């Protein structure tokens, strides 16, 4: 990762910027939503590999900063939501696409299924992913 950041620095102009945008493991919130209400039904379970990936990425960008390659200019956090028609669709997605990183505990599955079944006709299931976006200024001699 650190080598990649040095490569990116090489191909950027002296006034160039690097945008780092990525999800952060943070026990993402599970919700059942409709036009009328939002019901929080639990959080996903983070697996160690995802947490380790976040730590490795953070270490790499800190190392690049300490090496004098980039200077952080601005950082923000925001939510990126995924939503599905049914709890079953969300469960299938997590089991097939994110099985290495997160899981749903049985209690959260049951709470989500119940809230959805008892919810409004337009009820959907939503996952709120925590996102980081940071702008780094490249540092190099002109």
């Amino acid at each position, binding site marked *: *990762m650190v*080598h*990649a950041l040095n*490569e*990116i620095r*090489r*191909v*950027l*102009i*002296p*006034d*160039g*910027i*690097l*945008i*780092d*945008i*990525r*999800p952060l493991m943070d026990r993402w919130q599970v919700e059942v939503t409709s036009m009328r209400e939002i019901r929080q039904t639990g959080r996903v379970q983070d697996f160690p590999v995802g947490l380790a990936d976040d730590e490795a*990425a953070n270490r*790499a*960008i800190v190392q690049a900063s300490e090496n004098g390659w980039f200077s952080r200019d*601005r950082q*923000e956090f*925001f*939510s*990126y*939501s*995924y*939503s*599905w*028609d049914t709890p079953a*669709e969300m469960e*299938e*997605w997590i089991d097939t696409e994110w099985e290495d990183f997160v899981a749903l505990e049985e209690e959260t599955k049951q709470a989500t299924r119940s809230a959805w079944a008892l919810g409004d006709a337009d009820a959907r299931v939503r996952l709120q992913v925590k*996102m980081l*976006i*940071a*702008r780094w200024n490249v540092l190099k001699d002109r």
Partner: protein
Amino acid sequence: MTIQNDPERNESKHLHTLADFRNKRVLEVGCGEGRLTWQYAKEAQLTVGIDTDTDALRVAEVDRASDLEHKVLFTAAASEYLPFSKETFDIAVLAWSL
């Protein structure tokens, strides 16, 4: 399966808050199928998306609008060995890839 991603467009809003892509040469690292690329590519002068997933790159090329053919390019490459000369780009975007 019906899935909606970021219907509030928070990602695009924050991206444009932190970067002005107008007339810039942009390198997107980890572009995948181009989901993020399409949120700014029309404004940029040139966008090059790289990824090691060639299947995803094929999807990105198929999805590329005809008016972007000459200003959005995709190529298979790893971020550790970028096949570009020094100081080629104004902006680099690490797209969910650090």
